[in-house]
């Protein structure tokens, strides 16, 4: 229990990921949902870093960097979409974003 193994990091990661999932499921503010997605990405990064330490190899960290890059891109584009949507609909409530259905 006192020795910190990758399993501990995985538990942390899983918990963080599920907090993100619950955020996505529960909140109706799309900005919060995006932040929950960032949390999930962070959970993944924690996992990658933990395995990198276990294997004594930095490839995991390199992957984490790529994840961060993708997260940045996603945040930029996603927030752009949110802005554009808000400009048209005056709302960020995801329950009102239902025009693309039957």
């Amino acid at each position: 229990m006192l020795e910190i193994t990758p399993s501990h990091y995985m538990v942390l990661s899983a918990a963080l990921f599920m907090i993100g999932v619950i955020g996505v499921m529960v909140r109706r503010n799309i900005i919060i949902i995006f932040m929950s997605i960032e949390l999930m990405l962070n959970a993944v990064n924690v996992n990658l870093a933990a395995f990198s330490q276990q294997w004594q190899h930095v490839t995991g960290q390199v992957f984490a960097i790529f994840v961060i890059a993708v997260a940045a891109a996603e945040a930029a584009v996603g927030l752009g979409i949110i802005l554009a949507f808000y400009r048209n609909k005056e709302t960020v409530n995801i329950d009102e974003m239902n025009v693309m259905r039957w």
Partner: protein
Amino acid sequence: MGEAIVFYGLSAFILGFAVLVISTRNTVHSVLFLVASFLFVAMLYVLLGAEFLAVIQVLVYAGGIVVLYLFVVMLVNLKRAPETHQDPRRQTRLGVAVAGAVLAEFLAIIVYSSTNPSAPAVLAAGEVIEGGNVEQVGWLLYTNYLIPFELASILLLVAMVGAIVLAQREL
């Protein structure tokens, strides 16, 4: 012993701020909690010996992305509360329940795999890269992962262009 204390402390902060992020009503507060959570994750990276990743986490996430969020939150100047309207068909409880179930399954897997550890594969001796963490990451990025790295930069460029286009007034 010390590592354990630090890990548990950091974990508590990370998870606590994360929970605050998704539970706070005020969006600005939510963003600030997110920054805090990211910073503690950065400390966790330091604990894991990934100093370069920690720096990137602080610079990019806490410094860049979250500021972007903050800007958006400021720009979305809501006249009414954002979460007033609620669709009756959304299955919030079911979602939370499934999420809890998945988490339970994950924990079961983790517990199961940690009690029956598979022999860790030993890396070939020649692949161990000398030098500090930053040097190692840099080496890999500019040799083995050069093409993904360049692709990532192109992705960022495209995302930038896309964001600019989307943010135009006359969309």
